């Protein structure tokens, strides 16, 4: 028999050696599109990295150039009357004189100001500072004003008590005017925010084979949620860099899978799963020996207990549900850039960046009477994934430090949760994040 076996083996081995059959047309197109699609995330990552580097270099150059241009030029009184509302960056010797002032209350007229002796003359004063013995008479004028008393630091104005009639002289020992834009940068550079959002999760499926189409058709997204804390650092008046830690939970419902309980007495699979269910996000392996699964009119379940071998109705198993829920939880580490488009009481920001996502939980369950019934877990998931985000943030300033935030955000996962054979599934999500932020 062995010799005869060897003969028949040789017949086929030699007969099929170097045998060729032309494949059907269209196969190459499928291969090429899959290979091309898979290489796209790498290209995207490179583009994103180059963009991030260019942006960073641009910001730093811009910032440096602005700082150089604002260095006082020699004179202790770098006084620029061309700036309509300059800000004095130093405190008065008697700061209590100014603390009661509201914005725009303290005005003075620069005419007669001479750079040589650092003195100025104010005439026709009509407003007074709180301290009666050192009253400074001011003239209503649009030419100069202190617009933000919080930026007044250090010894600056020394009233000389030379009040004569309607005239008072003020000495400016170290007068320095800094544009308000630069001054505001010096404070509240950091902010911390707590945000949360319900998210709609779905996916782009570029798979072309019949199986992936069948899988996609029976899957529905579940409303998911995401939330966490973030901190941001202001690198210029309009740009901030943001990071933090977020937790997000995503999920989908797989229809057409009937589940039953009470299967354990019939299960004779030792140390192995009884059922495999193909999904676009990977293969579900059951780890609950009590659950029995059957697919309604499809071959997406792989098992030894097929309908012709085991009938759950004859075994009087308890029906549970006709669908499975897949749930994935991720810890996210975002790196975003925020650009402030509108800087008013209601601010508007453009937000974009990348997040590293680490898989921390993966469950598959079904529900019975509102309670979860564990089925198993999804195998083959990528433990790390990368996503890109783009959003528009609205910020309502409650005070100088506290604000309410609303940020509609679109997220696209650059690499799929898992790779199902012949199918390329790229999940995406949309959420409206809301929360509060505190600047310091």
């Amino acid at each position, binding site marked *: 028999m062995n010799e005869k*076996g060897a003969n028949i*083996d040789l*017949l086929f081995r030699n007969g*099929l050696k170097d045998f060729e*059959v032309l494949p059907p047309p269209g*196969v190459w197109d*499928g291969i090429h599109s*899959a290979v091309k699609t898979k290489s796209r995330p790498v290209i995207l990552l490179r583009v994103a990295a180059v963009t991030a580097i260019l942006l960073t270099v641009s910001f730093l150059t811009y910032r440096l150039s602005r700082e150089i241009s604002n260095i006082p030029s020699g004179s202790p009184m770098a006084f620029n009357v061309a700036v309509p509302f300059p800000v004095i960056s130093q405190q008065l010797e008697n700061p209590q004189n100014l603390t009661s002032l509201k914005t725009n209350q303290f005005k003075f007229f620069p005419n007669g100001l001479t750079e040589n002796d650092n003195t100025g003359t104010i005439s026709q004063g009509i407003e007074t500072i709180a301290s009666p013995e050192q009253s400074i008479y001011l003239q209503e004028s649009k030419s100069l004003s202190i617009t933000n008393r919080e930026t007044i630091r250090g010894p600056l104005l020394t009233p000389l008590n030379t009040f004569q009639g309607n005239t008072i002289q003020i000495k400016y020992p170290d007068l320095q005017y800094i544009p308000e834009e630069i001054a505001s940068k010096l404070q509240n550079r950091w902010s911390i925010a707590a945000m949360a959002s319900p998210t709609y999760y779905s996916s782009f499926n570029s798979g072309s084979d019949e199986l992936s189409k069948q899988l996609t058709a029976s899957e529905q997204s579940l409303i998911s949620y995401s939330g966490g804390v973030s901190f941001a650092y202001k690198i210029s008046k309009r740009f901030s860099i943001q990071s933090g830690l977020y937790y997000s939970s995503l999920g989908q419902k797989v229809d057409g899978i009937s589940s039953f309980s009470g299967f354990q007495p019939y299960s004779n699979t030792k140390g192995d799963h009884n059922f495999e269910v*193909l999904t676009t996000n990977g293969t579900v392996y059951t780890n609950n020996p009590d659950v029995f699964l059957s697919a309604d009119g499809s071959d997406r379940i*792989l098992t030894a207990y097929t309908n012709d071998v085991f009938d759950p109705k004859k075994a009087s198993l308890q029906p549970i549900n006709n669908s499975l829920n897949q749930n994935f939880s991720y810890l996210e580490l975002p790196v975003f850039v925020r650009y402030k488009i509108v800087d008013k009481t209601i601010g508007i920001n453009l937000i974009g960046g990348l997040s590293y996502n680490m898989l921390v939980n993966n469950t598959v369950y079904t529900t019975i009477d509102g309670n979860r019934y564990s089925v198993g877990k999804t195998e083959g998931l990528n433990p790390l994934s990368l996503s890109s985000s783009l959003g528009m943030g609205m910020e309502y300033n409650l005070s100088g430090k506290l604000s309410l935030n609303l940020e509609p955000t679109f997220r696209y996962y650059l690499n799929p949760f898992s790779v199902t054979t012949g199918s390329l599934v790229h999940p995406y999500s949309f959420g409206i994040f809301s929360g509060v932020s505190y600047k310091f």
Partner: protein
Amino acid sequence: MSEIKKIIKGCLAGNRRDQELLYRRHAARLYAVCLQYSGNDEEARDILQEGFIKIFEKLDNYKHEGSFEGWIRRITVNTALEKFRKRHSLYRVDDIDMIQEPDAEPDNQDYAGLEANDLLEIIRELPTKYRMVFNLYAIEGYSHKEISKMVNISEGTSKSNLSRARVILQRRVGSYTGIKKKVANE
């Protein structure tokens, strides 16, 4: 640098022309392998497509040691096995039929006149589990121990499946040869 090395280098650089060239050079040979392992043309086409996607993905793992054709054939066979395991591994093949060694068949058959197409047709008519074991043992040259791990069956089942496959093949070859002779005589 040899031509295949140039093509591989081009593929690794993402050059579409080289990728297509690699496909055109090897697709016919590999498609024959796919047909050999599959029960229908659609499945063979899927195996070919998935196999080539894996080849392109793993191309940077190829160290130019040993035959490139052998390397891509192994990937294709593994893809076919992966598909087989997905569809059939949980049927616990070893519990189904521990068959007896079949009775000896007269092996004085004249195999002349059988062409590769005929052989392919005969092999594809085998039940899937027999076809897998026969292909892996007789064509690829794996041992029963290796096959048992690859197909997730016991060594005994691998041997009995091979034995059953040979018997079926001998009968089919015999009837094919007979039909061919009859047609030729007519």
